[in-house]
């Protein structure tokens, strides 16, 4: 799925990474616990989270995650946007709650690989 399709499905606002809308994402995960992301995520892809602090961007960097979607209307700080921009990442935000946002992407075929 292309990043721009994610954007459309989640009715999301892009905070940084507008130039990367044609990038492909193959999988996604949703979590507010960065510890869990670091422990369990096997593939680089997209991260949905309700947590907003710079460590979300750092965690994504270590995991080779290129796209972060903030759910429940959470807005990333200028600091986070700058960190993401330097790392060539996409930050988006949606009003949807976590469950709905994950459901939309899953139903559209963004399914973790077996």
């Amino acid at each position, binding site marked *: 799925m292309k990043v721009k399709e994610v954007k459309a499905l989640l009715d999301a606002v892009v905070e940084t990474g507008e130039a990367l809308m044609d990038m492909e994402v193959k999988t996604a995960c949703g979590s507010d616990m960065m510890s869990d992301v*670091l*422990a369990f995520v096997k593939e680089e892809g997209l991260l949905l989270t309700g947590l907003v*602090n710079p460590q979300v961007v750092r965690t994504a960097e270590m995991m080779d995650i290129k796209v972060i979607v903030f759910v429940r209307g959470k807005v990333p700080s200028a600091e986070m946007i700058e960190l993401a921009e330097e790392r060539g990442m996409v930050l988006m935000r949606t009003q949807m709650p976590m469950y709905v946002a994950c459901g939309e992407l899953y139903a559209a075929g963004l399914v973790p690989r077996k």
Partner: protein
Amino acid sequence: MAETIKLQFNIDGNNFVDAGAASGKVKKTLTQLGFDPAVIRRAAIAMYEGEINMVIHADGGVADVYIDSDKIRIVLSDKGPGIADVELAMKEGYSTASQEARDLGFGAGMGLPNMKNYTDEMTVNSKVGVGTTVEMIINC
């Protein structure tokens, strides 16, 4: 790479914005040196967990990284409170993290087990009241 590349970072214990910056720099260096992405990912995650631990549990410390073509060695030393029972601390889910650390998305008690999983060798030397040194080796 004929000679070992040595990097050293001071990890500030009171700066949660910069926590992880050292791991990010190591990741960048390894990428520039052309290491295998899977090796880089393992090294970056392991060091990041250790770096975060020094910030949330030990008020900062020092990270030394030694890069050879066949192995990456990461040594994290702090003068924090130390770990009374290292075996217990290594258990998945064991955590003494503060509410503040948890609110920031850490404190699942997965850091040390994760560091062990992502590295080929890990040793933890700790003394209560003196500090903790974690050494990790990733073979390339």
